[in-house]
């Protein structure tokens, strides 16, 4: 899916038309959902970020910054948050070329109250509602004991208050998660929960125009967008965005080369060297970890720390990153990615490539003659590449890894049920807080679908991470997470592999290109511009 009509180009390339600035973005899959209440994947997020807006978001360094809330006050006990809403924010006045039901009216506190209640409503079934389970009255609302969620209330037309059950340090970050947008009641009700997906209406810089399934999504400029640049010019600069769906990275790269895309989602390893030379290629670390999980509830990894450590010593992370991934990642020695609170390079043990040590540990683990395990990974070229390389590396230590690929759905299923002895996983932060890593992925409360697929269960670890959740002093939290991280490293429930980087690639004529702290997919095109 690539925009330019070659045949008509000549005809229509008249001076006035040339002004129309459409940004063509290549994305890797047809987004399942454009309704933010239901979306869970990055392809959907890429589009949703342009249409919808949350109360807060992040600046380039990962600090929370105002978006639709101009400011906020947090109570001493960190249980009460009062948000002062931005004035003059209006819902889109049209969607898919037709006027919206809300008519483009201003967003007020009532809209936020309604939106939160809608998203958290148990009948809505939002997969991300539970992110806000710390809000007061969440439980009762879920059980349908109350009509409204008790903890969210209106102070005045431009002020809302949210009360929590317990102090939750990353709360603001959770609100930046792109499920919690303001939605126009009229339009949601008009189309229904089902069909709002095809008529998404928000407050963002771009309005939804058209969605040809598997082909493209077209957005147009929101003329009534609230933001202006420092010179007082109306944002966004672009006239529209066209997301073209090309499911193959090689083809996407080709299309980019042919000039059919202005931005592409991902540059696969083979093209990295070429892409790196391009002016608008930006790469930065991401809050993400690529790992292989050991199943701690079944043989051989159950109760066998030396074995897990042996695995961790058996791979040459840097070699893998350098040769197979062209150096596009950072070796991981633990769960937390660099840049995250609690990450510390000095935490022991440090897993380096040490075949001798690995062999010794293997012996200690009771496998002096090597071991055979099956690694399950989900079907994808990139995962396969890494698995093949690691398979070869493992061999040197006498670890015979056989590979088995299943598709993502089957992998999730098996992971939920802790059925696989050794499996590929990865994690990208939902919000920039170690809680989202250590608690979610390794706390024993979360064993199963909630995120802990290894069955890791360590009392100390559980206690520390639980305590860190409600701790309000950042310094204390950091210490707690360092401790937790060191337990995780020592116990090695995962084969820590690497921390991802995130990158963006745009054509040279795309101005103000950047890669946000939170990953390339969260880039908003508000101030991007095209100057050919």
């Amino acid at each position, binding site marked *: 899916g690539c925009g330019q009509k070659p045949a008509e180009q000549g005809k229509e390339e008249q001076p006035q038309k040339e002004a129309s600035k459409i940004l063509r973005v290549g994305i890797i899959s047809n987004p*399942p959902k454009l309704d933010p209440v239901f979306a869970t994947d990055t392809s959907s997020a890429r589009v949703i970020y342009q249409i919808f807006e949350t109360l807060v978001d992040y600046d380039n360094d990962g600090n929370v910054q105002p978006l639709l809330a101009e400011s906020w006050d947090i109570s001493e006990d960190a249980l009460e948050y009062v948000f002062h809403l931005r004035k003059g924010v209006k819902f889109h006045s049209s969607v898919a070329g037709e006027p919206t039901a809300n008519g483009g009216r201003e967003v007020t506190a009532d809209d936020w109250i309604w939106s939160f209640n809608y998203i958290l409503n148990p009948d809505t079934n939002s997969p991300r509602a539970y992110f806000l389970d710390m809000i007061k009255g969440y439980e009762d609302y879920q059980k349908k004991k109350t009509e409204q969620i008790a903890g969210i209330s209106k102070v005045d037309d431009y002020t809302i208050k949210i009360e929590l059950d317990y102090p939750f340090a990353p709360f603001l970050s959770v609100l930046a998660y792109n499920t919690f947008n303001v939605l126009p009641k009229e339009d949601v009700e008009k189309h229904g929960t089902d069909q709002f997906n095809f008529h998404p209406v928000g407050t963002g810089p771009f309005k939804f125009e058209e969605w040809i399934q*598997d082909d493209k999504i077209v957005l147009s400029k929101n003329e009534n967008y609230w933001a202006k640049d420092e010179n007082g010019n109306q944002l966004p600069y672009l006239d529209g965005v066209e997301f073209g769906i090309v499911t193959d990275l090689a083809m996407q790269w080709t299309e980019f080369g042919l000039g059919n895309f202005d931005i592409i989602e991902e540059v696969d390893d083979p093209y990295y060297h070429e892409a790196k030379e391009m002016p608008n290629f930006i790469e930065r670390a991401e809050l993400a970890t690529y790992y292989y999980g050991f199943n701690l509830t079944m043989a051989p990894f159950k109760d066998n720390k030396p074995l897990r450590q042996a695995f961790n010593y058996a791979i040459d992370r840097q070699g893998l990153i350098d040769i197979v991934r062209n150096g596009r990642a950072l070796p991981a020695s633990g769960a937390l990615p660099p840049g995250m609170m609690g990450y510390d390079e000095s935490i022991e043990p440090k897993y380096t490539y040490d075949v001798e040590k690995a062999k010794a540990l293997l012996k200690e683990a009771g496998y002096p003659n090597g071991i055979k395990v099956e690694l399950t990974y989900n079907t994808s070229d990139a995962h396969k590449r890494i698995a093949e390389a690691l398979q070869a590396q493992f061999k040197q230590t006498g670890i015979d890894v056989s590979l088995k690929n299943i598709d993502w759905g089957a992998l999730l299923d098996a992971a939920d049920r802790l059925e696989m002895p050794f499996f590929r996983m990865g994690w990208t932060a939902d919000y920039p807080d170690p809680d989202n890593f250590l608690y979610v992925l390794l706390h024993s409360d979360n064993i199963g679908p909630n995120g802990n697929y290894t069955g890791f269960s360590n009392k100390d670890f559980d206690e520390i991470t639980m305590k860190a959740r409600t701790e309000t002093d950042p310094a204390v939290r950091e210490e707690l997470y360092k401790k937790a991280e060191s337990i995780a490293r020592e116990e090695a429930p995962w084969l820590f592999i690497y921390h991802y980087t995130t990158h963006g690639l745009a054509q040279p004529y795309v101005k103000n290109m950047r890669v946000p702290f939170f990953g390339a997919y969260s880039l908003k095109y508000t101030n991007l511009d095209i100057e050919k």
Partner: protein
Amino acid sequence: MLNYVIRRLVGAIPVLVGVIAVVFILTTIVPGDPARIMMGQRGNPETIAKIRHEMGLDKPLPIQFLDFMKNALTLNLGKSYRNNMTVVEAITTRIPVTFKLAFFAMVIAILVGVPLGIISAVKQYSWIDYGAMFFAILGISAPVFWVALLAVVLFCVILGWIPGTGTGNGELIYYVLPSIVLGLRPAALIARLTRSSMLEIVRQDYIRTARAKGLSERVVIMRHALRNALIPVVTVIGIEVASLLSGVVITEQIFSLPGIGRLSVEALTNRDFPVIRGVVLFMAFIFVLANLIVDLSYPFFDPRIKYD
């Protein structure tokens, strides 16, 4: 004739029911839960259970099957789990792309295959014949995905003749390459079959009769032989439509065409059961229909066949 069509369509119902039964069995034995997939990597067990219930996935399989069949009768194939679109809509929005692709591929196949076959047969054992048949078999032997890859590199990247993949704004140029790639195999098959069928026909007595009348070789071949020779070719075209549907899956994937093939793969990986069932039913129906059309076209080629 109408009677016959109705009879055939009614006769196809057991086959379609069988196809659906197979899909049901397949979709239930597979691991992977659509509700779970919708949740993303991390899911909340209660929400999953609720969604499963809403999808009716907690009902016993036979009940699900009967429900589906009942609804299918009214053309209600359900809604996509993935994005709430009705399955009928999901299919109909993709039909034009797949139809165009398959149609062009078939047209190319026929336009290339038939003349090649004729020339080959007429010049039997000449180097033209050997060459044409060698390339025809080569065409059948080269993997579609590989040819597609080479074609993209050659025509899009190196030569720049074709603007790229996808459908652009629906310009036909975007269909050229995929259609050729997809049409390659049927073209080769048709060429081979036309040749052998032609060789068989030119040995027939009535061809000798035609020659004995003093007709020129061109008239003999094009008028007397061709129509007879095309009868088995038509059958193969019908069968090829079915394998074309399979070919479409790969071709659409490689050329990023938003058609039925892509839909089916996407549905398969996301356990979007209603869409899988819908697509399979649709493809099976197309297969049945294609064969029916082929059968109905026989009387045009062969007046000995009459349906009533």
